[in-house]
């Protein structure tokens, strides 16, 4: 699994950089995504995770370094082009249209149609049926595909978006903080579907600021900090504690631990005083 040189990566970034005006958002970041593997991108807020996804998803173009898709150097000019190349992105906030029914959301942007010429219309039966089947296949049993997707829980919505990407033949799935706003149980559910997508043979980029979630499913770990890459490891090379320590920035975490240790005493004193 860790043998990098033998297989061509689905997506390979090398020393990629991006500037917005005079702001350096990303600098010298390298990343590999292989089929059937999960590459985790870790970093705190403002580390450059969003910029990185935007480049891979085709929303922005990189300014420096090389971006290879299946060994071929390229730059994506639109999300549509990324989709056509097999790169699907599930954005944290902008994954779905909340007021639209689940089945309309599922096929949005790639609607199947029947009929000819001006009478071309949506194949509504196929859309409804397929949505139900695909969600079942990912283990989501939905009561009603006609309900607005906004009535689903955050975890369910992420899962619908993942099922959608799998159905439309994505080779690479980019997940932008899929567990960020979720509770423990829902996070577990989403991680299960992330693993399910991996088992379907997709290469997954899992962006998160939670090293524990990352370590549960990840094969490779890329750590970002203030727009630069501060670490790149395979699963064998690193433990979850080391990952968490590196992510928080080593010494900074030690300081934080100190501060946190003292807090309970402070609390007790306050309580005693009352």
């Amino acid at each position, binding site marked *: 699994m860790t043998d990098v040189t033998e297989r061509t990566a689905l997506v390979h970034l090398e020393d990629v950089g991006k500037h917005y005006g005079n702001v350096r958002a990303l600098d010298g970041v390298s990343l590999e995504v292989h089929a059937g593997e999960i590459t985790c991108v870790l970093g705190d807020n403002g580390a450059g995770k969003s910029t990185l996804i935007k480049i891979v998803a085709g929303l922005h173009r990189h300014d420096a370094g090389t971006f290879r898709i299946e060994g071929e150097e390229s730059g994506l000019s639109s999300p549509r082009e990324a989709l056509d190349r097999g790169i699907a992105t599930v954005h944290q906030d902008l994954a779905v*249209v909340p007021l639209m029914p689940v089945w309309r959301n599922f096929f949005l942007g790639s609607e199947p149609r029947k009929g000819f010429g001006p009478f071309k219309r949506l194949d509504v039966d196929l859309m409804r049926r397929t949505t139900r089947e695909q969600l079942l296949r990912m283990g989501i049993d939905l009561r*009603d595909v006609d309900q*607005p997707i906004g009535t689903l829980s955050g975890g369910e919505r992420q899962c619908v978006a993942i099922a959608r990407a799998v159905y439309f033949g994505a080779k690479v799935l980019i997940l932008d903080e899929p567990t960020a706003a979720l509770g423990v149980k829902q996070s577990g559910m989403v991680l299960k579907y992330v693993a399910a997508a991996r088992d379907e043979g997709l290469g997954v980029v899992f962006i998160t600021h939670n090293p524990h979630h990352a370590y549960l499913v990840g094969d490779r770990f890329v750590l970002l900090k203030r727009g630069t890459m501060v670490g790149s490891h395979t699963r064998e090379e690193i433990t979850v504690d080391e990952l968490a320590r590196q992510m928080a920035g080593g010494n900074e975490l030690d300081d934080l631990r100190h501060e946190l240790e003292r807090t309970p005493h402070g609390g007790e004193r306050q309580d005693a005083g009352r």
Partner: protein
Amino acid sequence: MTVTSPASAPDTHQGPASDERLLGTSPLKRLLSRPELGSVVGALAVFGFFALVAESFLRASSLSTVLYAASTIGIMAVPVALLMIGGEFDLSAGVLVTTSALASSIFSYRMTANVWVGVGVSLLFTLAIGAFNGLVLARTKLPSFIVTLGTFLMLAGLNLGCTKLFSETVSTKSISDMDGFSSARAVFASTVTIGGVAFKITILWWIVLVALASWVLLRTRAGNWIFAVGGNKDAARAVGVPVGRTRTGLYMGVALGAWISGQHLLFSYDVVQSGEGVGNELIYIIAAVIGGCLITGGYGSAVGSAVGALIFGMTSKGIVFAQWNPDWFKFFLGAMLLLATLLNAWVRKRAEATT
């Protein structure tokens, strides 16, 4: 929860793919989740009210008058509703109708051509203005309120200026003696007698537009895109929906409606007053909002806008039939807008609470 009920529930019956856990979804609840329900209740109330206070309101000829008033608004309310579902406004819609009529009249008169040539030129010109609105919106990323307010003022000035320039007065020259006038009048401004009652042809145009718009909205890819662009444009863009193109199409739809209305105006009165149309854009928006369109986009229906236009027609003519001072019309319209919007919000909340 902040979410509202479905953007569409095209099939009220339960398909073969229905689930045994769906026991609770009665036809009544499906009905309650329709965007136009509030407006239908409002329309019935208005109808009942005027049926009581104005004796002549229930006559067949009154029905024809009400439907005609509703259709002149409804022809524009349909594309304006679609645009609002797509999340945008068009403040230039009112004067665009006059622009379209003027373009047709002035071109035919100056070129002494068959009026159908003018009608065709007007169609192209009006669609171009619609496309202009959409493209400026896409290029500048300014709010549509500002962009179309600019177009509104420019068109209002253009209407007055060009009419004065070409015919030295504020209205156009008569074109009733020109080739093709009678056939054009038959298409845009004739009267059809059904069962002894004369109905204006605009009612037919209106019905066709509502049917067409409903089909596009619920059964085509473009319709899916309209809901998506209005509901969450970033999500739509991220899955490959051409947001700019969808919006431009919607503005051109409004232009198409303006062209039909404009030609009706020209061929029913023969001359066009260049200052007309100002303020009508708000009436179209009101009809769409009464019909259940969410002002923030992503929700609504074409049928709803038709019901909104019908409420408008009933109120404007009902006041006349009741022999009240028509000055009160605006007051009623305002009250209706508030009530209908409240009712819509309330119905939607009820529908969600029981889902």
